[in-house]
């Protein structure tokens, strides 16, 4: 008949708990390893390089357009070779280099966002591994992380993402064109064949 109570359930529960804890530790190590592979870090670096290159090409194109416009504006205003020419081009160079720094800053911020997102995904998986079958709260957190992932998937870089770096130089160009039109209007005030040009410009074209 035997004395004492059977403890089969207790032994089974202890064995199951030990196995569960061992499995959780094993899974945590594997999750940590999955998010720290050299390939993942290389992918993030490629993303950083691509983002940096994209922003920088935008800055380069804007600088080229602004430099060309400034060159014609200074020449049209008769300021070529003067202090205005020198100062304005120095300011152009400053603006361009600041744009390059901004491009790099944004690229690094984007890469940091990726790393932060990876951390969040890792923590989410840790929570799922720990909760196991009792994953109600972990599931709600997974849904929230998925919404954030979907927002991350939107294209965050666009053609105008650096903004108009050289907007003020566009005003220089426009003013030079306006001044040129004003000079033409004064030159042809009487609109006769015998009207002597007053400002020394060549009739008929610029």
């Amino acid at each position, binding site marked *: *008949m*035997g*004395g004492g*109570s*059977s*403890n*089969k*359930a207790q032994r*089974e*529960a202890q*064995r*199951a708990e030990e*196995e*569960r804890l061992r*499995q959780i530790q094993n*899974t945590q190590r*594997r*999750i940590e*390893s*999955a998010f720290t*592979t050299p*390939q993942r870090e290389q*992918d993030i670096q*490629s*993303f950083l*390089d*691509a*983002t940096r*290159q*994209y922003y920088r*090409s935008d800055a380069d*194109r804007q600088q080229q357009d602004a430099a060309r416009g400034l060159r014609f504006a200074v020449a049209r205003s008769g300021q070529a070779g003067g202090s205005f020419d020198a100062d304005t081009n120095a300011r152009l160079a400053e603006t361009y280099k600041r744009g390059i720094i901004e491009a790099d800053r944004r690229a690094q911020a984007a890469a940091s966002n*990726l790393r932060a*997102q*990876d951390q969040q*995904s890792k923590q*989410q*998986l840790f929570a*799922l*591994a720990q*909760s*196991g*079958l*009792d*994953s*109600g709260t*972990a*599931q709600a957190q*997974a*849904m929230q*992380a*998925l919404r954030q*992932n*979907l927002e*991350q*998937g*939107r*294209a*965050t*870089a666009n053609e105008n993402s650096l903004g108009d770096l050289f907007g003020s130089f566009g005003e220089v160009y426009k003013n030079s064109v306006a001044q040129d039109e004003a000079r033409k209007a004064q030159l042809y005030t009487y609109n006769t064949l015998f009207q002597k040009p007053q400002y020394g410009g060549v009739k008929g074209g610029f």
Partner: protein
Amino acid sequence: MGAVAPAIPYIAAALGTAATIYNTNRTAKKQDAALAQGIAQKAATQRKADQKIAAAVEQLGVSSPAAERQQTMAAFQDALRGTEQQAAAGQTLGGLSKAYDEATQAGSSRANQYVQGVAKALSAIDAAGLQRQREGFGTADLSTNLRILGREQEGQDFLSRLKAQSIRRNPWIDAFAGAAKAYGSGAGGNVDWGNLGSFGGV
């Protein structure tokens, strides 16, 4: 026989007690076995969950944005295909001079190179986000699967508890034990303690 007869009520009482103890232990063992079976079954379900988690983690370990990059790049190339004529719509003057034609061609070539560079950069940028989107889908699927397993396990737990609670004492053994103890206590009171035969006086 005369010496044994007075001991029969005590033997009966002892048998009744032993039967009660036996029935109690037997019932406890059955309930314990039922609980142990439920715990073992839950452990098996937990192993299934662990396998799903391990599969998801393994997928993460080899996750790469290469497929997304190829897809986005292919989509960009499809979008650009056939736009050469429209892109060159402003360059309608030809044959003005050799220098002008060469400059026009060089400009067109530069434009193509620039667009390819932009497409390559954007496909890499978008691929990283799409990769994490895909991984998010995988984690969401995993959590849903775990929740389904959890709900199945809740049902199994309920059934295990019901099974353990439904295990009852054997009524026949209890009846026998009760009768034996009743006989023992009743008959034991009628023993002539002064005449126990070979047992002598008490």
